[in-house]
């Protein structure tokens, strides 16, 4: 099953009320499939064909404010146009789901995959997952709605999936029976909603005398959603046997060198780890699944024993380094004994990164760190 089709199937199974999206590669198949499901009566939802992504997310905000379960989907420039509204959805604490089929931001124009779009809205205040394969995409649709709509959470959620690498791949996906989904995901019961019988104001102006209080409330709430995230993953695991965690490790215990990846890199990197382990090298893998709220404790627990981390970013913060690497450096700064960090930016704009590339990156990082370069940064594989 194509991963995009599985994602659409999951959205249908969540019985969403409103779908609003604007076509952009590579998320197109998801919304195309959903429009088909609505048109042929398989899904009883309002499908809004809007004139831009700005409107697409605005419709979702309005729908969620009125108490509907809303879905949208975008990529790259589409997200850029939506970005204004991403901050509004989270500031108003409106649960909804966006699947972001990650694609490079222009310029130069590119339709291929990297994480530059996701990093553009890193601070938008949504719960943000990076998934590794199609099954995770499908599963996280249910997880996201249940989590975001929980009264103790009330945040919109983004599922980041690598464009093309995941969105257009065909892989076996285990679907879940509708009865189980209906049990796992109860109908949405909004805390507040716009209704003429009980007038309220959403999105009012805040003076400097109260704005900081509102931001602190939002920041603490997102940070505090961690236990509920873990609990939701646990319930999902109990139902399906597929247990997820904010940080996933592969042969990482007692490894001297750890590769750190996010998104679909994880599967390829694990092949590289297997090869290096066969050669007797002490290398493991740490995968970040939860990007916001950032799982500081779990990340430290998974990495502090290592001598060095080879952090592979799929985006570059021009003028600084990879955004994942800077996050990790901040996360580990307070530790008196911490691993060296070597940062590669790889696979931007969809360039293939094979297991052999991960091995080359580990080789390079180990040599550089040995020579005293403890904070290296480079864009990998660039022709000189």
């Amino acid at each position, binding site marked *: 099953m194509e991963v995009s089709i599985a994602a659409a199937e999951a959205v249908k199974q969540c019985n969403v009320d409103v779908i609003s999206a604007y076509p952009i590669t590579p998320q197109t198949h998801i919304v195309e499939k959903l429009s088909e499901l609505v048109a042929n009566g398989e899904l009883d939802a309002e499908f809004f064909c809007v004139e831009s992504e700005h409107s697409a997310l605005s419709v979702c905000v309005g729908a969620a404010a009125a108490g509907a379960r809303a879905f949208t989907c975008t990529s790259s420039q589409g997200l850029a146009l939506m970005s204004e509204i991403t901050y509004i959805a989270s*500031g*108003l604490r409106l649960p909804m789901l966006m699947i972001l089929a990650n694609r490079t931001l222009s310029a130069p124009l590119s339709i291929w995959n990297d994480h530059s779009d996701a990093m553009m809205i890193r601070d938008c205040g949504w719960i943000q997952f990076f998934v590794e394969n199609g099954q995770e995409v499908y599963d996280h649709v249910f997880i996201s709605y249940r989590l975001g709509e929980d009264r103790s959470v*009330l945040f919109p959620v983004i599922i980041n999936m690598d464009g093309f690498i995941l969105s257009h791949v065909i892989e076996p996906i285990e679907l879940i029976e509708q009865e189980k989904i209906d049990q796992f995901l109860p109908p949405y019961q909004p805390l507040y909603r716009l209704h003429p019988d009980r007038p*309220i*104001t959403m999105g009012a102006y*805040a003076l400097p005398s*109260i704005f900081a209080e*509102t931001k602190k*409330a939002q920041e603490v*709430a997102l940070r505090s959603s961690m236990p509920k995230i873990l609990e939701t993953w646990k319930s999902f695991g109990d139902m399906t046997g597929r247990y997820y965690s904010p940080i996933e490790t592969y042969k990482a215990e007692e490894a001297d060198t750890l590769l750190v990846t996010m998104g679909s890199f994880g599967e390829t990197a694990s092949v590289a780890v297997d090869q290096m382990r066969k050669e007797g090298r002490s290398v493991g893998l740490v995968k970040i699944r939860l990007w916001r709220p950032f799982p500081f404790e779990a990340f430290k627990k998974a990495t502090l024993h290592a001598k060095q981390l080879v952090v592979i970013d799929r985006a570059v913060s021009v003028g600084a380094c990879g955004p994942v690497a800077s996050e990790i450096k901040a996360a580990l700064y307070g530790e008196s004994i911490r691993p060296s960090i070597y940062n590669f930016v790889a696979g931007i704009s969809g360039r293939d990164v094979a297991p052999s590339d991960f091995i080359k990156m580990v080789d390079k990082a180990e040599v550089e760190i040995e020579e005293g370069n403890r904070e290296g940064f480079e864009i990998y594989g660039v022709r000189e």
Partner: protein
Amino acid sequence: MERGVVKEMTKPEYEWTWKELPVGNVILEPGNASQYRTGDWKTLKPILNKELCVHCGLCYIYCPDMAYHLDEEGFFIADLFYCKGCGICSKECPTGAISMVLEEEK
């Protein structure tokens, strides 16, 4: 809402702590904007010379904040709780009955 009847606000916005704010900063009391004193923005306030006033109501019509209301004697008077002191009423008054004076001056 009846003019001049200001609903009891639970408390002014500068007294709220972050823990007390409703989720998403939703305002749960409809119409509480009437409790917002925009009057403290002004430097100039409108003063009506009743001898020149012809009761045309243009000040009432032009006021962008709906701060004007009709008093018992038939004069349109600016409510200084809301009046921001923009001076449009003074500019539009056909008889020059409204003058703008510095707030601290009597």
